């Protein structure tokens, strides 16, 4: 299968990429950025995308690598992940897997090893596949997106940045440069129910909880694969916040995972793989499992070791 014909340019730096992008836009070309290409190239082969111009930013070194994190600063240090950091690099970064066990969970079950070798975190966010694993983790952990454009740099909450199926708030002349994750509690986990052929989640859920004296003092939850974009189930988070950890608490919180999100009621996707009601059911179960594992890890139980499955 061939993609449609296109013109190709490779950027050597972020500034160079922004220039190429602006120039192509000035000529009125339909232009796309190419990072690892693990989502874009398949889409182009299926002719779901047929850009006239591809700007390859894959070699822009300044957008690669991880900085910050607990090792490098005081407690509360943020972790900044360059947009072109690959899944493989994240998966093999001991600071990332130790600090963000939910990310380790997701990276272990995301696509396959060859795809993880080239797919990038920035490409994943820009692609905004409604059934993509990592955005659920990043949402639950309150990640922000750093974006460079012709008019300077801006920062957006990932929750505001994702707008729908394959769509984000990224302007035509902008490039995602980094994802920043604030310090996170160790009680976190990601669980998914994969579609067996594609490995994409029919439903996936990430939970991050902080527990003090038997009470949940902080809870972040996000669900992916279920609606047009990964979302935070607000009622689930509300039930968990400041609640004493009782046997029934997690189940009653998870029961609301298909309830409401930022934009109102969750409207579940429905396709040949899973109906809307089935997806909502899976959302509840995956949320419950993620919460249970997150609580286990919060209490230092090693049976919830990151990336185990």
């Amino acid at each position, binding site marked *: 299968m061939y*993609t449609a014909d296109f013109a*190709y340019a490779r950027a050597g730096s972020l500034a160079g990429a922004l220039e190429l992008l602006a120039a192509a836009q000035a000529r009125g070309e339909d232009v796309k950025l*190419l990072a690892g290409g*693990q989502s874009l*190239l*398949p889409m182009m082969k299926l002719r779901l995308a047929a850009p006239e111009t591809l700007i390859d930013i894959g*070699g822009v070194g300044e957008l690669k690598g991880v900085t910050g994190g607990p090792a490098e600063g005081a407690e509360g240090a943020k972790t900044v992940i360059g947009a072109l950091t690959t899944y493989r690099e994240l998966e093999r970064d001991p600071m990332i897997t130790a600090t963000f066990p939910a990310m380790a969970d997701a990276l272990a079950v995301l696509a396959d090893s060859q795809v993880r070798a080239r797919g990038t975190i920035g490409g994943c966010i820009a692609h905004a596949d409604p059934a993509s694993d990592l955005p659920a983790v990043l949402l639950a952990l309150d990640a922000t997106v750093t974006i460079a454009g012709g008019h300077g740099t801006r920062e957006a909450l990932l929750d505001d940045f994702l707008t729908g199926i394959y769509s984000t708030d990224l302007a035509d002349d902008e490039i995602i440069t980094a994802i920043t994750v604030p310090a996170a509690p160790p009680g976190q986990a990601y669980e998914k129910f994969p579609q067996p052929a594609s490995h994409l989640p029919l439903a996936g859920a990430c939970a991050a909880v902080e527990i003090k004296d038997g009470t949940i003092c902080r809870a972040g939850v996000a669900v992916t694969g279920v609606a047009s974009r990964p979302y935070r189930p607000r009622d689930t988070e509300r039930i968990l916040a400041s609640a004493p950890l009782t046997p029934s608490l997690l189940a009653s919180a998870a029961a609301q995972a298909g309830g409401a999100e930022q934009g109102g009621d969750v409207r579940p996707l429905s396709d040949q793989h899973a109906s809307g009601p089935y997806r909502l059911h899976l959302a509840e179960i995956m949320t419950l499992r993620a919460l249970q594992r997150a609580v286990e890890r919060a209490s230092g139980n090693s049976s919830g070791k990151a990336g185990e499955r």
Partner: protein
Amino acid sequence: MPASTGPAERDVAVTVTVNGEPRRERVPARTLLVHFLREQLGLTGTHVGCDTTQCGACTVAMDGVAVKSCTVLAAQADGHEVTTIEGIGDAEGLHPVQRAFWAEHGLQCGYCTPGMIMAVRQLLADNPDPGDDEIRRGLAGNICRCTGYQNIVAAARAAATMLQES
């Protein structure tokens, strides 16, 4: 690191070091690495199965890491090193992973085999002593329509032993 190019072009000059030899060709920008290898260079050991990033028959090592060459543009490989199945061994001197597939009957029609072998090579580089579960998970990106995987897992395990003993 390959330098930046000039303005966008529909034909691109690509230099890839394939199995240790620099190969330079001018190709349409949309040329996939797998077609560059098979059609430009005649290296037909790398197969195309699904062409949709699922089956892994097209697996090659790029800068030493296994990737799916149907999902990499030849232009993205410009300035990089690629190792194909032809580069890891030959009839006189099979690679240990090739020997293990032979010994354990890890193939039937052989269509998936070059990709399987390149993927097992990566798996064992990352994890020299994997358990069966880890092998199955590590090969999640490779599909075989014949063997039922049992003997592929056995071959990966045998290869691990061979590599550790050598």
